């Protein structure tokens, strides 16, 4: 590989290893974290700027595209980042291969199921089904 000397450490490990995917996971966890810095601060600032936190106010707010779109991103990226982080914790502390697979599978189902539930609720609010 003529690229050897100029490749970054991350560039050298991406796609390598028996799983062929560790580098992507590492990078994705960090990219999603940057997005969540912005989305998390957006959520806190938005809630503080609302006149109150009553149901009617929140429904009207989440019907605005400027609120519904960031909220959808927060749900998708938040659940994804949580799953990526929990996978690191499981991989570090659950040593038996079968148990590790079981834990990661349960976490995957919870994250996808939970994210779908949250998106469904948001869709119902944003597209006018709620309250």
């Amino acid at each position, binding site marked *: 590989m003529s690229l050897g000397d100029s490749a970054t450490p991350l560039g050298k490990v991406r796609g390598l290893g028996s799983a062929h995917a560790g580098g992507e996971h590492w990078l994705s966890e960090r990219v999603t974290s940057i997005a969540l810095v912005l989305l998390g601060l957006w959520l806190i600032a938005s809630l503080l700027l609302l006149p109150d936190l009553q149901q009617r106010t929140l429904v009207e707010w989440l019907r605005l595209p400027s609120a519904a779109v960031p909220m959808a991103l927060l749900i998708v990226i938040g659940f994804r980042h*949580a799953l990526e982080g929990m996978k690191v914790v499981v991989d570090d502390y659950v040593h038996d291969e079968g148990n590790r697979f079981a834990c990661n599978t349960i976490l995957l189902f919870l994250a996808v199921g939970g994210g779908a539930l*949250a998106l469904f*609720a948001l869709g*119902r609010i944003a597209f006018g089904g709620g*309250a």
Partner: protein
Amino acid sequence: MLVSILHRATGVALTFGGLIVLTWWLLAIAGDANGFAAFGKAAHHPVGIIVLIGLTWSFFQHLLSGIRHLVTDTGANFELRANKTSAIATIVVSLLLTATLWFYLLGVGR
């Protein structure tokens, strides 16, 4: 060391506490008035307030130590003194932000 462990602990708390509260809150907003009132009752219960304060602090702590991790990922901030100062700063600032936010929230009386 402590901040590294806190990053994991707060990450787990945000996963199982924060995302559940977020999902429940969205379902409550999408549902009828009774469901929303049930969420509000839980959120205003002393235990609920303690949980929400804990999650707020977890969010700020995880955010700040996460930014610190991003900086060290670039190869910077490995000098012992600067590294330790920034570690302590994440805790001090996260506590200050949490206290400020909740002083405002409880002071306004929502």
